[in-house]
């Protein structure tokens, strides 16, 4: 396009004009608000939700999981007539792993006026960028994961994930029963929830369960070579090892740990789930962790979620990201019913009301502390092919 244009000033004018045209077109394309102040009329025929999650990139496995869980919930809600004649519609946008994209998608969505609520991202950096935007625009946003400070900053920010440092003590009880008195810890120091666990939760175990941390090593999110820190860990001779990493790093770590000769128990957190230990083969068997979601649990609400999920995605077992995405939508649906309106401000009040009483969802019995979820943890372990309840 540019090669046809002759003079520099003209080129400059054209670039600026093109940009402005793009902006105008993008803006004019947006629809008319569905969720205006029609509180008097009750719920409109459709309620629109904006999903801003990572559908591509490193964390896509979690983002897509949340989207799938949300889809299961929406299908259930629409086909069961939970909201009467009203249908829920979810618009999917891909944050692609960057805070800037997430923020811009949220701003765009808010400005269009179409949405009653936002289903927020998984990554804390993205969520922290969206939170002030949503708060200022008074549109409720329900995050999942995003385990860190700076996400729940006000009345309009909600989280449908139980932060695991809050329920982690159940692991300490279990280890005490097994006779463990010393642990070595290796954690990704670039993930806030791991730092919190390693530096605040675990040190308390000495007082609570008589379990002492004898060595603690930090690694980075991109570490693949754990041989040096493992050497240090084993030199301190702990009874058990705690490991907190991202994704399939867990598999790589377990291979190297077992090869270095450690035979004791290993425990972790949610991040070890979702098949991330599969790469370790037999070396990954036996790793256990507490989780808010166990697909094999016999709680009625969990079973019904798993069944609905498997109807939509045959042959697959849902994981925690999907359970959270499901619960996030159901929270919103219950809030819509409670508020009797799709207006964002009324919806916010509805979300708070539902949180006050709690409800039963994919993750079992759900209670809330403020706008934050608290779940009942169960300990699971990896048996080489799936997560099973730990004996």
């Amino acid at each position, binding site marked *: 396009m540019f090669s046809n244009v002759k*003079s520099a000033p003209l080129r*400059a004018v054209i670039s600026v004009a093109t940009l402005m045209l*793009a*902006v105008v077109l993008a803006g004019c394309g947006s629809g008319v608000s569905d969720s205006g102040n029609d509180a008097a009329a009750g719920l409109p025929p459709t309620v629109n939700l904006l999903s801003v999650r990572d559908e591509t990139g490193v964390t896509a496995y979690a983002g897509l999981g949340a989207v799938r869980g949300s889809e299961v919930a929406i299908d259930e809600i629409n086909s069961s007539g939970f909201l009467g004649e009203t249908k829920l519609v979810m618009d999917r946008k891909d944050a*692609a792993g960057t805070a*800037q994209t997430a923020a811009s998608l949220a701003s765009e969505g808010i400005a269009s006026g179409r949405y009653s609520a936002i289903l927020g991202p998984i990554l804390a950096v993205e969520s922290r*960028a969206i939170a002030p935007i949503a708060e200022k625009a008074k549109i409720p946003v329900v995050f999942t994961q995003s385990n860190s400070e700076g996400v729940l900053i006000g009345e309009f920010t909600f989280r449908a994930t139980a932060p695991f440092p809050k329920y982690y003590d159940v692991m300490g009880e279990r280890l005490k029963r097994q006779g463990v008195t010393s642990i070595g810890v290796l954690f990704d120091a670039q993930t806030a929830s791991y730092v919190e666990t390693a530096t605040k939760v675990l040190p308390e175990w000495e007082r609570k369960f008589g379990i002492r941390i004898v060595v603690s090593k930090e690694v980075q999110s991109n570490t693949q070579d754990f041989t040096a820190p493992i050497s240090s860990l084993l030199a301190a001779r702990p009874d058990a090892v705690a490991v907190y990493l991202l994704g399939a790093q867990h598999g790589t770590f377990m291979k190297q740990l077992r090869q270095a000769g450690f035979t004791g128990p290993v425990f972790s957190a949610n991040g070890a789930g979702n098949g991330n230990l599969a790469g370790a083969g037999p070396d990954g068997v036996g790793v256990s962790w507490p989780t808010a979601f166990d697909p094999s649990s016999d709680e009625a609400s969990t079973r019904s979620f798993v069944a609905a999920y498997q109807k939509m995605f045959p042959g697959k077992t849902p994981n925690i990201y999907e359970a959270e995405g499901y619960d996030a939508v159901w929270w919103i649906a219950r809030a819509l019913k409670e508020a009797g309106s799709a207006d964002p401000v009324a919806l916010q009040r509805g979300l708070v009301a539902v949180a006050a009483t709690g409800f039963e969802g994919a993750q079992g019995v759900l209670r809330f502390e403020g706008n934050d979820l608290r779940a009942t943890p169960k300990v699971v372990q990896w048996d080489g092919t799936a997560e099973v309840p730990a004996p």
Partner: protein
Amino acid sequence: MSGVLGANSVLVQAMLVNLLLALSLQIPLRSGVFSFAGLGSYGLGAYTAAIVVLRFDHPALLALAEGVLLSGLVGVLLARLLRRLNGLYLGMASIAYGGILAVVVANGGALTGGAEGLYGVVADLGLTEITVIVLLVVVAVALSERGRTGRAVAAVREDPELAAAMGVDVARVRFVVLVAGCMVGGLAGGINAIMLTNVAPTDFGFHLAVLGLTMIIVGGARTWLGALVGAAIFTWLPIALQALGDWRTVVYGCLVAAVAVWAPHGLIGLAGQAVRAVRRSASRRKPPGPGAGRAPTGAAEVDLLAGEGVGASVGRPM
């Protein structure tokens, strides 16, 4: 209308920040100084602005100014330390500055928020203010591309010895462009931090270097217009290519490689070549006038990356 602007304001702001980032690399590069210190300065400016807003509640413009000032001071230090380095060595040393800074802030404890960074950086900075600031910077850069300054800068790039012989203070030019690049980089980082209300060590890693280089290579490394074109393309292209999903990065990589090999002066360069070709064929029809041999545009008609110019007309071997 404000709705429309609101919808895309984040992208427009992102484009302005990317433009500053591109300029921070281009200003030194135009003088043949391979300094990527603008990237480290981006991080320094971002963190400075975030810290003063969080701790001292400084207003946005003051926070930005502090970021720019600190980046400039560090730039002066770097310029002094690295003055004997050239080419690739200077490039890598200046990248190392950014790399070390990233590790330092990631381990900076409560001051820098550690690996998670700082959030809740709320200060009033509107699109109008950002546009005015960027406009001022662009005007300054554009002015420096014309007249005596422009020719001096180009001379330092092409043939430092010749430039020195002609009375240009080569060392001073190199010093000034390096520091200027740092200050513009610091400004970009500061604006971005306030815009996004948060900052993290991962914000200014290697991917920023690739983005910055990509913008000026594809747009054109010779002039500010190239930086603008590059910034516009790479801010809006991700949105346009959303359908491609994960394959976007493959497209970027191919684009960068292709442009570096076949169109090293970017889109602006291609356009310039087209202009020259048209003018040459037009002037063939007229009898040659006294000024026909001179370069038609204001900036020195030398090719930054291919190193032609004087050499090409002499036809050096190899």
